[in-house]
């Protein structure tokens, strides 16, 4: 009986042999054991790596979350679609971006129910601005303080072409330094600005200096809204409505300042701030600005007189309801009309 033996080993047996002699089985267990030891035992290297990772996360945020980025993606930090403050932050930051050169009418100040601006009113005002296209940008928030308005105005570029209508409210003119301090620590809008820093300095409130970095200067705003950003990011992945689970808890009444520590004694300070705000508007070479006085209430004659003084001295328009019962709803269109008209004359 003749047996033939093949010189070539069978593929199966060769594979089995290589499996037998490979060092994987021999080395993987100690390697895994060493990896586990490195993972679980404290060491200087892991502490250093932790510091590097934490610093890298901070550096990434400081370089990535810029004002330009926020102007495009600021809605990521919105609690919901009705989050006025996040919307205003995003719109205000976009004011610093290059535009097509069309004039813009900014609505600033208090977002009150008696001075709502309808789409029809907005388009009528824009039409009044003449042949060239104008844009009306509503930057009002509920009970917007003068400091918040200042920080919005600071976002505009020098040589900004347009006008502004500032809707004043009693709470803005009666807010004391405690409100400014609270706004510095827990800002409602993410627009820390040099003018507000000066106001903090004037009020003798210690604040961290401006670092010229959006993330660092506005970390209170961003970190307070970090849960909303996480939720919005996850909803982008899952396809659910943005921040829908928490949108309901952000209502206009909740965002209004309460009626607590407000005093007429702050009127002088606040009118001085208003004066500086108007001066700031004029420094920016805006074509025309108008003030809408707060609703009438008993005993505010002094306030009205002082507002008229400021308007006369600064050469801006002042609009107010004629009597205590009339709403300011009719006054705002007049103010917008006047500013739109001056844009046409100025163009």
């Amino acid at each position, binding site marked *: 009986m003749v047996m033939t033996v093949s010189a070539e080993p069978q593929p199966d047996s060769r594979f089995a042999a290589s499996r037998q002699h490979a060092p994987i089985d021999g080395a993987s267990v100690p390697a895994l054991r060493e990896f586990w030891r490195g*993972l679980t035992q404290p060491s200087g290297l*892991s502490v250093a790596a932790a510091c590097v*990772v934490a610093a890298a996360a901070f550096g990434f945020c400081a370089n990535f979350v810029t004002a330009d980025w926020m102007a495009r993606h600021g809605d990521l930090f919105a609690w919901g679609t009705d989050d006025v403050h996040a919307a205003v932050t995003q719109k205000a930051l976009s004011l610093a971006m290059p535009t097509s050169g069309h004039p813009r009418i900014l609505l600033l100040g208090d977002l009150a129910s008696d001075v709502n601006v309808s789409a029809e009113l907005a388009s009528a005002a824009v039409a009044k601005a003449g042949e060239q296209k104008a844009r009306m940008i509503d930057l009002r928030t509920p009970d917007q303080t003068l400091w918040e308005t200042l920080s919005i105005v600071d976002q505009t570029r020098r040589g900004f072409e347009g006008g502004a209508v500032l809707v004043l409210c009693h709470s803005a003119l009666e807010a004391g330094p405690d409100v400014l301090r*609270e706004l510095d620590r*827990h800002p409602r809008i993410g627009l820390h600005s040099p003018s507000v820093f000066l106001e903090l300095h004037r009020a003798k409130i210690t604040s961290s200096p401006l670092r010229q970095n959006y993330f660092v200067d506005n970390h209170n*705003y961003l970190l307070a809204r970090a849960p909303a950003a996480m939720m919005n990011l996850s909803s982008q992945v899952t396809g659910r409505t943005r921040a829908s689970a928490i949108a309901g808890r*952000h209502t206009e009444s909740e965002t209004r*300042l*309460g009626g607590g520590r407000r005093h007429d004694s702050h009127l002088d300070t606040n009118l001085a701030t208003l004066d500086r705000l108007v001066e700031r508007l004029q420094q920016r070479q805006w074509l025309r600005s108008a003030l809408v006085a707060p609703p009438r209430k008993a005993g505010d004659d002094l306030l009205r007189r002082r507002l008229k003084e400021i308007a006369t001295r600064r050469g801006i328009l002042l609009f107010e309801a004629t009597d205590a019962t009339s709403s300011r709803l009719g006054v705002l269109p007049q103010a917008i009309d006047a500013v739109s008209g001056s844009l046409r004359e100025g163009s």
Partner: protein
Amino acid sequence: MLATSSLALVAGKITQGIILGLLLALALLHLFSLSGSTPVFRYQVF
């Protein structure tokens, strides 16, 4: 084999560092969030 074990040990330490670093960043974020709170709720104190 010795080199593999050493590499695995270093990899384990770095992985631990990355996990700790992320946890540290999250903890700092949480602390800041607590101190910053959300404006919506903080403004009730006025």
